[in-house]
């Protein structure tokens, strides 16, 4: 199934302009992030911590709706879904 990924800020710089990602049916956010992380080490570092856990400060939206921490592991993606990934900035 095709999933549209919208990458923002630093993440966009690291993974580039991804439009569509092909994932097996029934995949969730972890599978999507795994596919993105396999592109290069910088992507992996940005998405996962040293223990392989998804970095908690990143904002994920599916079809423009925020996905909370608890739903991150359980939500199942469907053909045509749009996933936005925003690692927030902090400086001033």
């Amino acid at each position, binding site marked *: 199934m095709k999933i549209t990924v*919208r990458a923002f800020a630093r993440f966009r710089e690291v993974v580039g302009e991804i439009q569509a990602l092909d994932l097996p049916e029934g995949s969730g956010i972890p599978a999507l992030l795994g596919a993105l992380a396999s592109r290069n080490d910088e992507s992996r570092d940005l998405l996962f911590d040293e223990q392989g856990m998804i970095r908690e*400060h990143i*904002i994920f939206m599916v079809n423009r*709706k925020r996905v909370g921490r608890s739903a991150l592991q359980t939500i199942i993606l469907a053909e045509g879904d749009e996933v936005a990934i*925003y690692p927030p900035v*902090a*400086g*001033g």
Partner: protein
Amino acid sequence: MLSEREIMRYSRQIAFIGEEGQERLKAAHVVLAGTGGLGCPAAAYLAAAGVGRLTIIDSDRVELTNLNRQILHWEKDIGREKVVSSGEKLGAMNPGMVIREVCETVTMENAPSLIGQASLVIDALDNFPARYALNCAALEYGIPCIHGAVSGFDGHITTVIPGKTACLQCIFPDPPGGSEFPIIGTTAGIIGIMQANEAIKYLTGRGSLLENRLLIWDGRDSSVTILDLERDPRCSACGDHLPGAPGTGGRR
């Protein structure tokens, strides 16, 4: 009441917001936390717009590396307190504005007393622990807080209205790491001016605010994306389980 000189000084915006809008700006007390990359442009436009009282808070002194973006601090100011350096320029820009300079770090302990009298708070800080402290104090007093943050070519901004919108901790429950960040000066300029724009809209009752909306600016291609947000009822700062929630100014 506006003086004749004030009516002339602000005539180009009074034509748009009316004398009533201008009087609202004059009556306002804005507390600006941070006089760095975001705070300098935000403060400059608030001073130019005729905000009556501005409290500026910053514990830092001006460094050479600040000068690519912190436009109220100049070569001659290196080593001076940022609140003194920026207070001087803002006072020269608009002598009619009452400026209070506070050279302190924003903490959970001092944030309530720093912002207690404000009509509006602007979060132009550079780290999340201080931002969370400001957010909590603003929720406690029911004061709107305009949050902005930047790094590199990226920035974001949202307006928090206690009891109505997602608060900073709903949106960012976990702090992004890192203390020293690369920054293009114009990114801070754009987001800082957007913060001033939100402030002017809120104070004059014009337009619509970035309520429950996170505006993300990407300076690489000058694109703007708006993410819709929601209050988190289980938020550790404004959640429904807290006494006096949802944050209508009565948490004490």
